[in-house]
Every structure is written in C-alpha cells, then in structure tokens.
C-alpha cells in the first residue's frame, strides 16, 4: 500500500467534481458537511455509499431532493455496517455472475457517533469480523445532535448535553469518551485511522488508503458541531485544529496493527513544548462553559489529566518516547 501511495495536489482535489453536492440543509459551520465533501473527493472510482440515520442522512436526502451524486442507501440507525455487508456481498456475487458491469465498486458506510459507538457497534464489529471490503467512516460530533444534543459514548468527559446537563450537583457527562478507534484496532483489522478536517490532506489520504486496503477499514473523523457544542459556527475548523494541537484528538493510523502518529500529531510528539493546554480548545465552547467557573476547576484539571494520560499511552503504542515539555 505504502509503495504506491496516492499522490495528489490541491488543484487535483479542487478540480475533481463534488460527489457530495451543495444545497443540502446542514447548519452554518457544520463540521460533518465539510468532512463529507472532502471524503467524497478521495474516491477512486465507482462507489456506493450507505449511511446510518443521523444529521447528515437527514440533511442530504430530503425527498425529492438529494445531495448524493453516487448511489446511496439509508435503512436505519444501527445498520451502516450491516448495509455495507449486504452491498459488498451483492456486488461480489453479481460480479461473478456477470450481472454488473463495473470492474470494482468501493463501498463507504457513514455513521455518526451514536450510530458507531452506541447503537451501531454490534453491526460494525460483526461486519469487521467477517472481513467485508468496505470503509466505515465515523463522523464524530460527540453527541446525538440530530435529536437535540443528547450524550453518546463519544461525548467527552465533562461535556454538557441535554441528557448530561451541567447541573448543580452533576457537572456534565461523568463518563469518559469510549476509545472507539482502539476498539477497532483490537479487531485486528487492516486499517484504522483518525483524522481531522483541518488537516484535510491527511484526511483525504487516509480515505484513499482505507478504500485501497483489502478488507475493512475504519476512519474516525473529528467533526465539530456548532449547534451542539454551542460554539461559533465560524470556528468549527479552528476547533478541529485545536483538538489535535491539544492532543484531545490526536491523529494517527494503524496499518495491520502497526500504529503510528500522523504528521500533525507527530509534530506535537517531537516538540512537546508546542502541545497546547486543553483549555485552549475547551474555551469558547458552550458545552464546557461550566469548567471555566470557579467550581469547574477540578473538572478542567481532570480533563487535562485524562488527555495527557491518553496521549502518553498513544505515544507508547506508536513507539514514540514520551518527552517532557
């Protein structure tokens, strides 16, 4: 795979026709909409997309309109991976029987954090175990945004949502964000990666790698949601950058179980003094507002500590020697 890595220029990407079209009804500053557009820029040929119920399904397919210039199927919330299984199986046998003309068709499954961490994890785990050849994209906006900002397994510690509000007694979500990409690595699947839309070239490269790999690939993409995060819509991509710089959301990939940091996070590992405090990322997001009040000090410290611990663990996994700032 690495021997013939796909090379592209910004011009190539700009010139490639969009497959996720404008006119959809996503909110201003929607991180996932940018993520989807970029991902569809990385396709390499005939592609079928399937999608779990969620924000992006809803905004892109309101009958009789569609934002999809590729064949697209939605069935339910928990079925992105099982849909992909059926599509891939159908393509395989129909190719064998001469009932489809394409030499190869890529299959991409999109799901949000609810459709991945929570209700969709069984179908995802099963599809990966069976080894279907497809790319699963988790666009993680860290809560059930479509239904009105309820906490999910992907919601970070301390975040206020409508089902984990920051109250007088409980300061937002008490539990920690589930390490979903690690769980997928534990499936011993060929390709797992995390990506942020700020580092769009890194994202696009990873999509292509995920498509090129034989068998299942999992891509965890950070996707800021101004409505759910109570953040400035103009700053979504900035938050996608800060999440990486603070190591709240490091970018890395695991190829056949070999884990390595991707350049943006590698740079932080090499120059720890550049690692920003989590407060830089959390500030300005309404969902973390309570952390910046006097009674939120301990929670803020906790988030910094958890972030640091997870970063150290990741460095070890990637064979990096932890350096002190």
């Amino acid at each position, binding site marked *: 795979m690495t021997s013939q890595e796909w090379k592209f220029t910004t011009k190539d990407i700009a010139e490639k026709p969009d497959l996720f079209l404008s006119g959809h009804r996503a909110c201003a500053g929607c991180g996932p909409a940018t993520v989807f557009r970029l991902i569809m820029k990385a396709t390499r040929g005939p*592609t079928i997309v399937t999608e779990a119920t969620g924000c992006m399904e809803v905004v892109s397919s309101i009958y009789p309109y569609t934002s999809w210039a590729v064949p697209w199927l939605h069935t339910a919330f928990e079925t992105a991976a099982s849909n992909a*299984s059926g599509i891939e199986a159908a393509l395989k046998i129909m190719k064998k029987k001469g009932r489809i003309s394409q030499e190869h068709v890529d299959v991409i499954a999109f799901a949000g954090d609810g459709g991945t961490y929570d209700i969709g994890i069984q179908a995802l785990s099963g599809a990966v175990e069976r080894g279907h050849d497809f790319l699963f994209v988790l666009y993680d906006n860290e809560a059930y945004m479509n239904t009105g900002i309820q906490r999910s397994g992907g919601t970070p510690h301390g975040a206020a949502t409508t089902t984990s509000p920051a109250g007088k007694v409980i300061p937002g979500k008490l539990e920690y964000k589930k390490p979903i990409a690690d769980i997928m690595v534990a499936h011993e699947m060929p390709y797992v990666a995390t990506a942020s839309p700020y580092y769009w070239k890194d994202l696009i490269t990873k999509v292509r790698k995920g498509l090129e790999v034989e068998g299942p690939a999992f891509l965890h993409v950070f996707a800021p949601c101004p409505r759910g995060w109570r953040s400035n819509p103009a700053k979504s991509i900035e938050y996608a950058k800060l999440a990486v710089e603070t190591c709240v959301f490091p970018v890395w990939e695991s190829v056949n179980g070999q884990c390595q940091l991707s350049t943006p996070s590698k740079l932080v590992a090499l120059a720890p003094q550049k690692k920003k405090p989590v407060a830089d990322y959390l500030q300005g997001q309404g969902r973390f507002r309570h952390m910046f009040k006097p009674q939120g000090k301990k929670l803020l410290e906790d988030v910094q500590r958890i972030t640091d611990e997870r970063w150290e663990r990741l460095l070890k996994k990637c064979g990096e020697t932890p350096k002190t700032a």
Partner: protein
Amino acid sequence: MQKVVKQEMMALAGDQAVAYAVKQSDVDVVAAYPITPQTIIVEKFSEYVADGEVETEFVCVESEHSAMAASISASATGARAFTATASAGLALMHEMLFVASGCRAPVVMAVANRALSAPLNIHGDHSDSMAQRDSGWIQMYAENAQEAYDSIIQAFQIAENLDVLLPVMVGLDGFTLSHTLENVEALPDEVVKEFVGVRKFPNVLTHAGKTAPFKLDPANPMTMGPIALQNYYFEFKRQQEEAMTNALNVIQQVNSDYAKISGRSYGNGLVEGYCLEDAEVAAICLGSTAGTMKTVVDDLRQDGVKAGLLKLRTFRPLPVEAIRSALENVKAVAVMDKCMSFGGNGGPVFHEVRHLLYDVASRPYVVNYIYGLGGRDTSPSELRSIYENLQSILQAGRVETPIQYLGLRD
C-alpha cells in the same frame, strides 16, 4: 401449454425443503443468523455453500437485525436475497421489516413459526409472524413440507413481480413442519431456475433526470431510503397498499403458473377450500393444522356432518373477496388462532375474518378458537369438538362464548 415435469421424491424436513428450494432459486445473497427452529435452513444452506453447490454469497451475520439489514441492502444493490428466522429473531428484525417493505426490497424470508418469550419456548405457534402483520410484508403459511418448498420458489416470483415489489415471508410451523421428515417432490434444478428467472427492475426517474433500473448502480446514481416528510411520506405508504392489492392477482397467477409445471396448486393461491361447497359448519386455519383438520373433516363427513375447512394460505394481503365467497353458504365459522392478541377480544385472524364478514348479506355465526400456543399439541378429537360446538351454536341460534381456548389446562 407447459407440461408437468418429472420430479424427484425426496425425504425432507420442512427446513431442509426450504433450503433446497433456495438452493434451486438462483439466490445471490443469503444473510442469516441461527435460531431454533429455523437453524436447519442455514445449516443446510451452509453445506451447499461449503460444497460449492450454489453461486451465493452467504453472509453469516451477528444478529437477525443485521440479517435483515444486509438482505435489504443486497436487494437494493440488485441481488436476489433470502433470509430465515423465527420467534425472537423475527421480533429483533421488527424495525427492519418496515424498512424492507418501505424500500420495496423483494426479500424472501422463511419463518419457522415459534412462540415468543417469556416464558422461553422454542415450539411452534404464530405469535412471531402475527406480531409482524402490519409490517408491509406478504405473508403465506405452509401446510406441509411440500408446500413450504413450493411456496419459497413461488415467493421469489411474487416478491419480484414489478407490480408488487414487496418482501414475502413464508411461515412453516416450528418443529411440526420444520423438523418433521416428509416426502417432498422436488422439481429439477433447471426448471426452478427458469421459473424464478433473473431479477427484473422497474425503470424509475433518477435525480439526474434519466430513467434507470431501480437499484444501487454507480452508472445511474440513485438515492434510496431517503427521509420523506409530511409532504411525501403518505404517498409512499399508499403505494405500498396498492402493491399489496396487486399481489392478490399476482399470487393467484404464480400459483397457476406453478401448477402447470409441478402439477401442484394450493386453492387459488390465496385460500384453499376443503369440502366447503355444501358445508354448514366450517373452520378457518393457517399452516400445518389444516392437514389434521382435513382428516377431521373427512371423518365428520363420514358421519354425515356437513363440515368444511378454509385454509388461509395467504394472510397478507388478506384475501377478503376469496374468503367471503368461500364462506358464502356456511352458517357457522370457527376461526383458529395460534396466537393471542392480549386484551384485544380474540386472536388476529378472528378479528379480520369477523370484520370482513360484517358486510356480507347473510352473516354466519363466528367463534374464535385460540389453540396450540407454545407448541401444545392439538389432537383430532379436540379439533372435532370445534365442529360439534359449531353445530350447537346453530341449534341454539346464538354464540354463547365467542372466544374459546382449545386444549387449555383447567
């Protein structure tokens, strides 16, 4: 005029007969999860796959929910898809059953009918599929292994008919049929392959303004399973109802086409009357009970009782006219339900049959018999008592207890 072909007599349990029919029907994708008493279907089919006897992708999914999702998506991609389940498995599919019919995915599914928990029970009744009667699936029930075999083959033709395009479930009673060895006449492979043919697709208008076959094809991108709100959802549902109406004719046509090659037919495909012509008292039932009931009717006839039977082969779409005309001269009817509708004043078949008889000129007396739950055996003498009760009703001129439980411990 086609000729009835020479067939091979095989000893098959109901599940095996289903697997054999699927093997012969040029199915592209089977996505299934094991559950008693359906398991033999997937086991047998796995053997066909392992021995290279079928050109089918077998997706051994991790749940029935995924089985149905993968069947729908395979079907949407253009494949002929089959799955099988029972009881809790069908209940787990519930959400996806509506998606299958709503996406107009002509998936065929065998349901080895079994009781629902709790208490846990692996034996046969109709609680599982009756609970799915409003899911937009065509429902057919087999009387024996032969009919299970024949119905599966017919199901592909019915489901994929362009005037229908609806999923079909074929019920076979758990253990009574699924695990019981019977003689089954099987058609030659090439005859079945020709009968089911290759899947056809309706041409629909794509977003790009072209007409293209209704499937996921990169050559003609199409958005399937979209969100449709207050302004369109209702029309989608109305179209499903039209497809159900169309299925009434298609099922009859397929039944008669199939009779031409196999020599076997099941009434008009929708209902099968037995000794109904001059019957005064009659029972209506689904599935394997019909077999026992026929011998009971024979005995009663020997004794001079004008008894008859209506086997409801197709429950969805409900063959309203066929039932009305079959029962035209009957004076008292017993409707058999192997299922409860708790708090619903009788079982589901009873509700529907009594409902459709409301509009006939001379309404018969109608009584409901709930029986056989959790696989409880129903003996010929118990079935005979139903007819005796119908005679008493006629004598008394009224129905004293409209809902009765057969074979229930006191």
